[in-house]
């Protein structure tokens, strides 16, 4: 059984302007356990995302999730910038 400090591996997929900033469609991250807001803060800093967290939604494994969701190894995360369909 994993301990709380064991690193996990997750996949992040990017869309729209976040993909343009990250310059990639998806990538795998190995990181300490933490929640979605910590992950977004890290990536925002790394890729200079122009969007504050409050204007972004997030999905884990293809369902909307709350920012305090704790990540588990194997999770697939998508940050959702303001949508503009229709």
């Amino acid at each position, binding site marked *: 059984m994993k301990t709380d400090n064991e690193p996990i591996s997750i996949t992040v*997929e990017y*869309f*729209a*302007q976040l993909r*343009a900033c990250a310059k990639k469609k998806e990538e795998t991250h190995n990181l300490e356990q933490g929640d979605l807001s910590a992950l977004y803060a890290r990536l925002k800093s790394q890729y200079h995302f122009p969007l504050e967290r409050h204007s972004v*939604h997030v*999905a884990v494994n*293809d*369902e*909307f999730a709350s920012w305090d969701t704790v990540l588990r190894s194997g999770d697939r995360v*998508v940050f*959702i*910038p*303001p*949508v*503009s*369909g*229709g």
Partner: protein
Amino acid sequence: MSIFQITRDPIDLASLRSTLLDSGSGGFVSFEGWIRNRHNGREVLRLEYEAYDKLALTEGSRILAELRNQFGLSGIACIHRVGLLEVGEVAVCVAAAAEHRRECFEAVSLAMSSIKRRVPIWKHEFYADGGDAWVQCDHDH
């Protein structure tokens, strides 16, 4: 019946309509979103729509199923196109059939508002002046 679809091809309006034909329904309302030649005063050349397909289908289907129940529709369907679109092309079509017309108008109008607010689809506009922008629709057209 409620169906939400995403397509890379031109939307087949006649086929969308025919899935909703129903001899118990007296009203049918269809909305089409067309690519306009201007946006915020800039001349638009073309657009690229991109979708987070899996969640877009889940959320779109959820919206339509909710409206179908809420208004007792005989059916409601939506097709959203993604990829490169030229001015004048149809980006999205939502249509509904019901016994009476009021439910159809309400449901299709609400479907569009919810889709624009909740479904992970993004519009990238390319302008005649050489610029481009990821559109952010915070307000409701």
